[in-house]
């Protein structure tokens, strides 16, 4: 069957822009929003919260963009993520992308194809602006995302695993 409607792509960049590299996801989301691509819906958040499950339910594919605390390469990692049914942390209002997908599935019985784009960060101190490393990672991530989004929009699969730089992330806690 040939799809007659354009796939909806959701991009969620999250983190705190006042904690330097922690905000790289937000910076990425704001840049993607400037692309003015009507098939891409962009959200920027400090944390992932349960109500985003409703936004995910309306999407065909989703990209989460976040900082990754790491002194090791690669600068950018793109991992397929799958829903999980673990609850929220004890004292925290935030959920992980996997739990959010799990909420989406539990509530709406569907989930988009989802990926986590994590950008290596080295400075999470108080302040604004990205480190040189996060800046390089951001540029790389944006280039990769532009390609991925084009594929999603064309109804092509996002590069299937195994693929260099593309992995399936093991569920946290496993």
């Amino acid at each position: 069957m040939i799809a007659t409607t354009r796939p909806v792509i959701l991009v969620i960049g999250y983190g705190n822009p006042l904690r330097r590299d922690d905000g790289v996801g937000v910076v990425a989301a704001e840049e993607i929003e400037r692309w003015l691509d009507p098939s891409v819906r962009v959200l920027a958040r400090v944390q992932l919260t349960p109500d985003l499950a409703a936004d995910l339910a309306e999407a065909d594919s989703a990209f989460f963009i976040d900082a990754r605390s790491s002194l090791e390469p690669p600068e950018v990692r793109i991992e397929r993520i799958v829903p999980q049914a673990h609850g929220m942390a004890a004292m925290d209002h935030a959920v992980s992308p996997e739990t959010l997908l799990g909420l989406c599935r539990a509530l709406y019985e569907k989930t988009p194809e989802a990926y986590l784009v994590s950008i290596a960060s080295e400075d999470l101190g108080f302040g604004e602006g990205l480190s040189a490393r996060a800046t390089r990672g951001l540029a790389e991530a944006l280039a990769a995302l532009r390609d991925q989004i084009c594929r999603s929009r064309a109804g092509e699969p996002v590069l299937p695993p195994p693929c260099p730089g593309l992995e399936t992330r093991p569920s946290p806690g496993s």
Partner: protein
Amino acid sequence: MAQQILIDPVTRIEGHAKVTVQLDDDGKVSGARFHVAEFRGFEKFCEGRPLWEMPGITARVCGICPVSHLLASAKAGDKILAVNIPPAATKLRRLMNLGQIVQSHALSFFHLSGPDLLLGMDSDPARRNVFGLIAAEPELARRGIRLRKFGQEIIELLGGKKIHPAWSVPGGVRAGLPPGGREHLREGLPEAYETTRLALAKFKEIFDRFHEEAISFGDFASLFMGLVNEHGDWEHYDGLLRFVNADGEIVADQVDPSHYAEYIGEAVQPDSYLKSPYYKPLGFPEGIYRVGPLARLNVCTHMGTPQADQELKEYRYRFHGTATSSFLYHYARLIEILASLEHIERMLDDPDLTSDHLRAVAGINRLEGVGVSEAPRGTLFHHYQVDSHGLIRRVNLIIATGQNNLAMNRTVSQIASHYIRGREIPEGVLNRIEAGIRAFDPCLSCSTHAVGAMPLVVRLVAADGTVLQERSRG
């Protein structure tokens, strides 16, 4: 030049909330303390920044309640500019705060505490989470999400979809309600009301199962503080401070929030980065007080709207006037959602919501200002001192969760004393300690101005200091 700090080892997990339960020589609980091991940095970080940036900066203290900081910060700025902001701007700020209360309380009830309340404190931990709730009550869970989204939509309609709406600024706000906003919110109100009434009915239905929790989850005499309007009614944005005691007697009233320091002292505890505010006239720690929904319902004379007033009447009848159990924060939260919806509905016909007269423009006219508003979790104070150029010299933030610190400690101590027998922490007790803290709906990132996940560690310590058991969650 800004200094960069490299955190080594690099980690996103910055700390944890820890509970230490102390046993005496007889193995009985002699005390319990709730510590937050987090670094506070925002107050220092703000020094030297222009006043105009403060709403945007402080809104990023926390991802859950940015609006609360945005409003309190802007109000501190109003004081420093020495302006009366346009009436339309006041109404729009109020509307945003009401949206914030709805979305935050909905998250707390349906997602954070809902599993405890609706599935039971002793239910299987593997299922006693939001997924278990969805399996048991799918429609209620979906409604809870939509109720939160309704509150969020108010914030987005006013502030735009930017991550931190730099919408409320010293002197007023940047924009009114956009075209179609009024109609969109009116469409969402019926379901929001229905969900809130369903949740209230559900809570009343299940409340009798939680008799033991109601008497052990922080049921003690304390003062309560909140804002009230000129009639003594429930207030969330402006007004004056009122303190009442556990018998419902007013101990201080019509207090100008700018004079908070005459009434509120802040004690620093050696084992926690969370400050412990207390009511100064009674000293520390006797001046323990609570803020937030439980306190606001205790201090107000009326809610000021018909449905919420009816609920308040029933609530006070059930609990003989002043509710002292922290378990009742859950109930109070639902009544506040109802009041917020009624206030939102009333406001939607006001033509000022689309006015163009939204800002008072002025320079620095005072070197100090205090902005106060009721965040969902309780009264929030932003106190700034600036130089003649409007650069911040000093910041003091008194956060709602911090004001409940002493009460959270007392609650944890009470739960531990009530439930721990022997030298182990059973699973059900760990649940209840967590649930007791969760009744306050604490925002620990906010109160310590930090980010990251916040796991809970509970440690049982013998009289000689030996750690007998440690359990962690999250």
